């Protein structure tokens, strides 16, 4: 084995969350400092601030030519790790040694200017990613051909379709020739055909002996592309090894987390004289999971017993991670004989925003008489795959994130 091209040892990153409001202006800082001094004089303590370790003692090394996949739940520290390795932010502890030029693609089209033409943006974006003018000129035709935008080179990119925009942006980055390519969940954007093309390009990059670090939520792609996978969990390395093995661990841990739940028959809180809840689970493609891709539908189902003939009904309450009550829903109640029953409901694709959701399950009789109420019965994470985001890579706010049919048109009388 040769010397590792990336050597990470004990890397940690701490963010400090001040509980006294963030002070982004001078007055707040002065005020805050004054109060801090006063408290310290009086009680000998400062303000509480919560520490959040986005990464904690992460160590690994990468050999030249390896394609390393990095997977984990939202907030596991994947992006922070890439940002540190890209030198965008610095670690709190530990060190990383990188032996080679790095090109990182943490977002599609960073630095694209909507008013500039495709041609201008190729040069601008190339320069931002660290290419020299000659290098860009040399690869210009290749980039244009890859992006399939020949006819629109002199059109401002704000008039591009989102597909064209993404193609152009990826094309520029893909034609960098670094020793190390760092890619964050950006391929998820764009149509299937183009994704395939991008993956092919990344495969080609790897086969030339370059090293690729690749973050994705798409396990299929990770399994195909990567020679090794690291699983991050709450900022630490939870598994490191062959893709099949690590991905298996990841999916299993998701299921154990809360994608399904079983309740014993003697628990007082999950049954009454008439109804009893046995189990609940979340299924994507027929498999139990706590990880729901944003563009896939998920089935929530639960099994219960009717112990005495009654007009039985059920309902679910859905909360997001801030505790916002997103919705409640339930079937019409029916007169049921004693026995076991199952209710299932489909949560449609492209409906919930990404993030963690908690489900409460309620069993009731006679429409309003609650018999069983299990809070946080199951929970699941909806995660991004890039669908519906168009060119925007940042946070989209809100509880739900449906795909809405947008129209935009130019009104007459515009100065062009």
């Amino acid at each position, binding site marked *: 084995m040769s010397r590792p091209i990336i050597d990470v040892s004990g890397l940690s990153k701490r963010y400090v969350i001040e509980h006294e409001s963030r002070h982004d202006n001078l007055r707040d800082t002065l005020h805050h400092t004054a109060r801090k001094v006063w408290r310290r004089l009086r009680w000998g303590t400062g303000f509480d601030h919560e520490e959040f370790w986005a990464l904690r003692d992460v160590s690994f090394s990468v050999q030249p030519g390896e394609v390393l996949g990095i997977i984990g739940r939202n907030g596991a520290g994947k992006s922070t790790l890439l940002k540190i390795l890209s030198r965008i932010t610095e670690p709190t502890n530990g060190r990383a040694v990188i032996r080679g030029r*790095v090109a990182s693609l943490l977002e599609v089209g960073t630095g694209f200017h909507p008013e500039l033409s495709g041609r201008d943006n190729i040069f601008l974006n190339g320069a931002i990613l660290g290419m020299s003018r000659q290098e860009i000129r040399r690869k210009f035709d290749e980039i244009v051909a890859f992006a399939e935008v020949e006819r629109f080179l002199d059109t401002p990119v704000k008039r591009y379709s989102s597909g064209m925009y993404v193609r152009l942006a990826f094309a520029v980055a893909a034609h960098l020739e670094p020793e190390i390519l760092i890619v964050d969940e950006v391929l998820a954007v764009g149509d299937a055909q183009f994704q395939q093309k991008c993956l092919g390009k990344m495969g080609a990059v790897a086969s030339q002996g370059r090293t690729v670090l690749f973050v994705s939520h798409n396990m299929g792609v990770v399994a195909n592309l990567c020679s090794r996978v690291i699983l991050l969990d709450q900022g630490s390395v939870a598994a490191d090894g062959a893709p099949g093995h690590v991905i298996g661990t990841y999916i299993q841990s998701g299921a154990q987390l809360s994608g399904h739940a079983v309740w014993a028959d003697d628990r007082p809180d999950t049954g009454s004289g008439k109804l009893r809840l046995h189990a609940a689970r979340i299924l994507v493609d027929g498999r139990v999971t706590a990880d729901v891709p944003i563009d896939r539908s998920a089935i929530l189902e639960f099994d219960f017993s009717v112990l005495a003939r009654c007009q039985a009904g059920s309902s679910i309450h859905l909360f997001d991670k801030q505790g916002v009550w997103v919705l409640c829903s339930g079937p019409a109640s029916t007169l049921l004989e004693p026995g076991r029953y199952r209710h299932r409901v489909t949560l449609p694709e492209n409906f919930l925003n990404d993030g963690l959701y908690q489900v409460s399950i309620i069993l009731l009789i006679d429409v309003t008489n609650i018999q069983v109420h299990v809070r946080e019965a199951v929970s699941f994470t909806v995660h991004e795959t890039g669908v519906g985001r168009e060119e925007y890579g940042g946070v989209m706010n809100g509880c739900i994130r449906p795909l809405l049919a947008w129209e935009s048109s130019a009104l007459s009388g515009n100065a062009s």
Partner: protein
Amino acid sequence: MSADVLPEVIIEPGRSSANYWRDLWRFRELAGFLAWRDIKVRYRQAALGIAWVVIQPLVQTLLLSFVFGKLAKMPDGGVPYVLLVLSGLLPWQLFTAAFNGAGNSLVGNANLISKVYFPRLLVPLSCLVIALVDFGVMLALTLPLTVILGIVPGWQLLLLPLFVVLTLVIACGAGLWITALTVKYRDFRFITPFILQIGVFVTPVGFRTDFLPNWRDLLALNPLSGAVDGVRWCLLGGHTELYGPGLVVSCIVAAILLSSGLWYFRRTERQFADIV
């Protein structure tokens, strides 16, 4: 490909890259590209387009000439008052554009800073390039006007680049402070226009200092006074006088501003991505 011959980068807390200045050189074209982007985009969708480069200083020149020359009846020493103002406005505009641009540059490019690595210093530096381009355009228009109004610049014109550099150094030093502070405290966004509003009166933009002996030393405390006087001296072919002590103060303050600005910028640079 062997990993042994490649540049080695060590990432550690508190360690600014040993290759910082080399990186700055490697990315030097980026400053040009950022400047080119801003210039190219600036007058898009503006009906008058590039004419704005001229309109703004023109109106300001007329206004200042009226206020100082006609209303306040400041001495002109035989030079057309419009030229006095114009030759003061040139360096002042250069400073304003560079300082203002640099001051807002980091927050304005927050999306870049949180997603891509490059020496952050390039962002404010690109604003100096933009300011210099505007200055060039205005200078090209001012020189013929000077001749038409009867003043032929002399050998002093050759020294103009020195004073331009002096102005840029002051603007850069002050701009680095402001931009690094703005990342953390957005208050400085409001302080900048305030400084500029006061600055136009405490800098000899609309009047000449050589006829104001009582105020001269006080004005010299403002480092821009030396630069503005210098540019005026170059452009008006020695029709105004250069004030030595003022110039010395200018140079000293400029050096202090630039080195302290660089120091503060480099010190805070590593956290920009986390707080911007």
